[in-house]
């Protein structure tokens, strides 16, 4: 019986028992039987090895435990570099805006009369700061997670992490354009005809600037018309449903005075029908509702 079973069990059990029982290096046993003569360097070699072992232990300890502050310092360094780069970008942006203002002033001095079409195009392109009456929509993520089942320990249900998606913000913006908004800003960032509202991970990006909750969408235009149009829109109904279901905060109302900043407008391009003329980009404002992008070329 055991004879039959042996071949199958043998390999693994032999390896394991060899591993478990003969823990001593077999070299010692064979060296002991060989009976070799002593050398003068045997002692120093052993001491040197023990020295190396001690050094190795300390080095490994220091590497794992004392390297943490170094990592932290590197992280702080990276953070400070990011902040420095951000402040540089902000300074350059402010400089660009200032220069654009100078260019605009010089151009106005050269132009014979006040050009209404140019003003309208500037507003549409977000090249000038605008103020006026309008309305404001504020959407906020749920502040406290509902006290329903929390699921697996250590995890937060996806539905409670990011309820509001880029599509919601985009739908609000598109609705406001469609209701006749002349200028829109999200969290104080002015939308231009080629702005893009996207989703990356769990944050909403507006032209690569991350937005954080609450999302404040300010639109300048006819306050009454905007409010009536927005209140009747499907996105408003959807957000109201989300208030009840997911606990987001959502409110909107007219404002008598709103102030929207300008953005640095890049080099304008003439619109052309090329091979790349595909579907409209998922930017703020659909092609039918947004101010015509072709008017940006007037600068």
């Amino acid at each position, binding site marked *: 019986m055991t004879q039959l079973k042996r071949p199958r069990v043998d390999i693994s059990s032999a390896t394991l028992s060899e*591993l*478990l*029982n003969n*823990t*001593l*290096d077999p*070299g*010692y*046993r064979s*060296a*002991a039987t060989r009976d*070799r003569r002593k*050398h003068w360097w*045997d*002692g120093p*070699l*052993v*001491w*040197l*090895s*023990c*020295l*190396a*072992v*001690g*050094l*190795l*232990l*300390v*080095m*490994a300890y*220091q*590497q*794992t435990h004392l390297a943490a502050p170094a990592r932290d310092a590197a992280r702080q360094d990276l953070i400070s570099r990011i902040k420095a780069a951000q402040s540089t970008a902000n300074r350059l942006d402010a400089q660009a805006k200032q220069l654009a203002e100078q260019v605009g002033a010089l151009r106005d001095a050269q132009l014979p009369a006040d050009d209404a079409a140019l003003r309208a195009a500037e507003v549409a392109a977000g090249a000038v700061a605008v103020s006026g009456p309008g309305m404001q929509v504020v959407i906020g993520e749920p502040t406290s997670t509902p006290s329903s089942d929390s699921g697996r320990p250590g995890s937060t249900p996806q539905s409670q992490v990011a309820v509001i998606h880029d599509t919601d913000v985009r739908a609000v913006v598109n609705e406001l354009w469609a209701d006749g908004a002349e200028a829109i800003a999200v969290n104080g960032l002015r939308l231009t005809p080629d702005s893009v509202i996207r989703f990356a991970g769990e944050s909403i990006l507006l032209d690569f600037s991350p937005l954080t909750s609450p999302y404040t969408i300010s639109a300048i235009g006819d306050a009454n018309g905007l409010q009536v149009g927005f209140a009747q829109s499907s996105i408003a109904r959807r957000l109201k449903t989300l208030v009840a279901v997911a606990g987001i905060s959502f409110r909107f109302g007219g404002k008598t005075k709103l102030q929207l900043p300008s953005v640095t407008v890049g080099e304008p391009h003439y619109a052309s029908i090329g091979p790349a003329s595909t579907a409209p980009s998922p930017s703020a404002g659909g092609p039918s509702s947004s101010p015509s992008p072709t008017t940006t070329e007037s600068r």
Partner: protein
Amino acid sequence: MIAAIALVIGVILGIVFRPTVPLWIEPYLPIAVVAALDAVFGGIRARLDGIFDAKVFVVSFVSNVLVAALIVFMGDKLGVGSQLSTAVVVVLGIRIFGNAAAIRRHLFRA
């Protein structure tokens, strides 16, 4: 006895001089430590068994460290670095435990 003193001196040297580890060695250091510990425990046990041999000890120490590092290196190159590290740690851990048990039997007769 002198070996233990040498080990302590090594530790003190490491604390005092704080040798910086080159970056390319860093991943192999933990596994090298485990391999070195295996050699040390094997040496102590052989000493208690009365069959200690300096040459075997030194060769096993050096080769243990090198082979362990080589296995991790190969694993990293093949994309199974963590699994191979685990395998090395398991095998060496079993040997360390076995040798420690033998040393304990020698010292305490239990």
